[in-house]
């Protein structure tokens, strides 16, 4: 096993742990806002680590840039959608 393989296994596994933690948070946290918090933070980091782990395995700089672009787009979408859902949740159930 080369150093690159070890790096991939470590980073992708760490990413999977974040996905797992995010899912547990989604299932266990008490209300919409905290569930969103668990989901977006964990997914962003989890996907970031998976992409980081896969980077040494791509053939060519272009394919690597595509992977990073996918992560950045997921970051943007996650941040915007969680804001929109949080606003809708707040409107439906205003804080006392």
């Amino acid at each position: 096993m080369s150093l690159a393989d070890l790096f991939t296994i470590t980073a992708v596994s760490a990413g999977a742990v974040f996905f797992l933690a995010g899912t547990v948070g989604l299932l266990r946290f008490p209300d919409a806002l905290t569930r969103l918090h668990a989901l977006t933070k964990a997914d962003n980091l989890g996907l970031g680590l998976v992409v980081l782990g896969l980077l040494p395995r791509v053939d060519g700089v272009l394919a690597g840039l595509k992977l990073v672009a996918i992560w950045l787009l997921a970051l943007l979408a996650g941040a915007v959608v969680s804001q929109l859902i949080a606003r809708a949740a707040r409107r439906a159930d205003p804080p006392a």
Partner: protein
Amino acid sequence: MMEAFNVGLALLILALAVWTVVARDTFAAVVGFVAYGLLLTLVWVQLHGIDVALTEAALGSGLTGALLIGAAARLRKTEGAARAERPGVSTRVAAALAAGCVTAALAVAVLALPDPAPTLAPETAANIAATGVGNPITAVLLAFRAMDTLLEAIVVLFAMIGVWSLAPDRAWGGRPGPLHRADPDGILAYLARVLPPIGLVVGLYIFWIGADLPGGKFQGATILAAMWLLVVMAGLADTPPIGSARLRIALVAGPVVFIAIGAAGVATAGAFLAYPDGLAKPLIKVIEWALLPSLALTLALILAGAPERPAK
């Protein structure tokens, strides 16, 4: 290892399908359906059908999901009343019997298929060079099965006319969908300014790469349509009145070019939708370029809904 993943994926899809059917809440069922579509995308990737996977993600899950969410939102007011009505025992037994018979018939039909399945793949592969297109899916869709693709493009147009026909008389010729008013400094308006340039590049890239690699006009057009709808929903632009002559020309331009090239084939190559020798690839490109804007507009207008506001 991969075996375990595939079995797990199949079980998850079956479970999600059952859940989607059983779910009592319409919105929950729609969310189940979208997740089901995304899992199906993974199955297509596993089967090396990347073109189908892209289409499933963009159209099967994305566009259809958005349509169903719109429908669920409209049905919300009547949902309580619909749920209170419980069909009688005889109706439910009849429904269960009918559904069971259809399932049994499908199972018999699938099990009765010859093994190995009859295939034209070797012949197609042997003749693919004649089209000059590198992606076999694109070659099949636009050369060997061009008729299906032409009808598909026209069916989408008909679906949009079906949506338009739901317009009340006073709104006929007017603008589809509600007037969207979002905070001009809000997060949605921000996304509607940041994302479309990226989406345009990605959509055109997926369209352009379709000649040689997985991709194509339907997937590209869906992304372009999504970008336009994002701008509309953020209140930065409005949908055009459906009475506009320019809009109608843009909608039919793609299918008209396709039909014209098909008809020219009768004179130059001896059959409708046949391409003359050596001209297959350029003609396929012309058709793809003509269909892209028409498809993007049509898909976006299907999602935008029936005209609701007079054009003024």
